[in-house]
């Protein structure tokens, strides 16, 4: 057990500090997402007792599990949003937070993402997108850029990147944003907005994997990716003026969608309330 004083005050408040240092590789973006999320929670002054973390399988699922204090459900690959649906329906007063990777959320669990967004259930999903399956050593994922050589695309990927945030926006979520680990301050702000929104909120965070993905593209330092994010990022307002060709290879960042559709669990509660009233009459 480490001395309390060596950690951030906010780490002591929100993290299981006995689990630190993290198991992440040096320079891994997951650590920056962890750091930013800690900041977001602290500024919102949320009580860890009100938080439920639900995660899947993959490096980024280790951000909440085991590091964050809060009730934690570390589930099977691809399914955290489905598990979170059950949690939220039964515990509507708790903040249900899913932090997981692109393989988990957009790959094997892609259907759950779309339908949770469509239901507009009050869950905050933070998708850490590192463009590959990192935990298994660097294989192509639904978000790997076209043409990139990975463990399972030795001749270059023949598939195009899934724009997960745009898909979620179209599916009906109340809040959708995308940032990168280079944009730490707006990333923290977007996390806070997502946590405040009632309804399905989704923040895609492009985050570096300098080990598994980095070895494929010969970018072995975290900073190599952060520089790339800085170069390739285009604010959503500007992106709206650009053509598809101009946007090829760019990372569109910012708030992609905000709307105020009715939330799923509160609707379920209203139905039960109405049922009781009709029964009484």
């Amino acid at each position, binding site marked *: 057990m480490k001395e309390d004083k060596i950690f951030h005050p906010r780490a002591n408040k929100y993290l299981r500090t006995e689990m630190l240092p993290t198991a992440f590789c040096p320079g891994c973006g997951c650590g920056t997402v962890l750091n930013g999320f800690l900041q977001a929670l602290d500024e919102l002054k949320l009580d860890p007792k009100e938080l439920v973390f639900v995660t899947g399988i993959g490096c980024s699922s280790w951000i909440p599990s085991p590091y964050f204090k809060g009730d934690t459900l*570390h589930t099977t690959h691809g399914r955290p949003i*489905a598990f979170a*649906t*059950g949690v939220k*329906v*039964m515990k509507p007063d*708790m903040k249900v937070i899913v932090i997981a990777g692109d393989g988990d959320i957009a790959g094997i669990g892609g259907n759950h993402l779309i339908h949770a967004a469509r239901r507009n259930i009050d869950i905050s999903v933070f998708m850490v997108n590192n463009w590959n399956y990192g935990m298994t050593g660097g294989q192509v994922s639904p978000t790997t850029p076209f043409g990139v050589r990975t463990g399972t695309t030795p001749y270059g990927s023949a598939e195009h990147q899934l724009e997960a945030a745009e898909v979620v926006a179209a599916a009906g979520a109340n809040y959708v944003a995308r940032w990168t680990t280079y944009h730490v301050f707006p990333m923290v702000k977007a996390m806070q907005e997502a946590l405040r929104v009632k309804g399905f909120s989704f923040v895609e965070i492009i985050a570096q994997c300098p080990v598994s993905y980095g070895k494929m593209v010969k970018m072995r330092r975290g900073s190599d990716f952060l520089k790339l994010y800085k170069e390739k990022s285009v604010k959503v307002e500007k992106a709206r003026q650009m053509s598809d060709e101009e946007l090829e290879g760019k990372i569109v960042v910012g708030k992609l969608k905000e709307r105020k559709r009715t939330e799923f669990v509160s609707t*379920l509660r209203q139905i039960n309330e109405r049922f009781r009233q009709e029964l009484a009459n």
Partner: protein
Amino acid sequence: MGDEAAAYGALYAGCNFFAGYPITPASEIAEVMARELPRSDGYYVQMEDEISSISAIIGAVWAGGKAMTATSGPGFSLMQENIGYAIMTETPCVLVNVQRSGPSTGQATKPAQGDVLQARWGTHGDHEIIALSPSSVQETFSLTIEAFNLSEKYRTLVILLMDGEIGHLRENITFPPLEEITLQERKTGPADAPSFGGAAVPPMSTFGQGRFVHVTGSTHKENGMRDVSTQSVHQELVTRLCGKIRDARGEIWRIEEDYMPGAKVGVLTYGATARPAKGAVLEARRQGTAVDFLRLISIWPFPEEAVRKLADRVDVILVPEMNLGQISREVERFTSKPVLPISRIGGVIHRVEEIKDEIIANG
């Protein structure tokens, strides 16, 4: 209808969350749950598939709910991974599988008993499972309540292994007064009690109690924290998870036996097949053949003691079942006497006459 009885059994057991996906011949369970759950302030969610259905019920249980899902063969196959998750995380919940003819889409609307071994071994890794199989609509109701009670008592997923025949069968049922129903309370403990060890069945802390419960399907220590590299942690955990069911098998076994002196032949059966089998046994006796009857109500853990007892009594065991010999293979493990499967597949259930003829031919 058996499906409706399963739904009402769940409601009587206090189920307040159901997640499901439509599938023949189990959809009626979902429909009743969707209609009736608001009455007890429960919630129905129709998920996007069966994988998310079982996921959602496990989530609901950790959020303090009592939950069930229902499906049939194809959906049951999809749920296998998370059956293991529920076992590993010791999540009390109920899964109804109204078996239909397979493999694959098979005869979607026809009954079968082809999933009995999948129920036992479908999920990966070492595990023990509890599965109950009703033979009537009335029993479907009571066994669903039993399934909830066993799930709470042993903190595990329990399968109600119905078949399409019983699921879609309409027959008379009496609902007992609520006060006559005994429910197993969820075992809870003090805040510092480990949720994943320290007892064969540890007390369960759920979300929202401020206890920072950590639930993972990975190998974990008694406090729930992941430890996937220590051999002894895995061995202790999995041995306990298997042991808590295996050691209690005497309490979990449920059978119906009807023996008579001098029987040379025994009939062992379960589920819908038990109905014509029972008829055949009674008819054979009327015609002068001494025959023993054993019905397995709990399929898993396998009531091996009862099977041994039957095997000691008779010279041959007939096993009518709606598959090509799944339980008869299990029976063979406990006797060296001949075990003859009477198989019917293709969506037709045995007739009394044909089982009776087999009894007389072997008696």
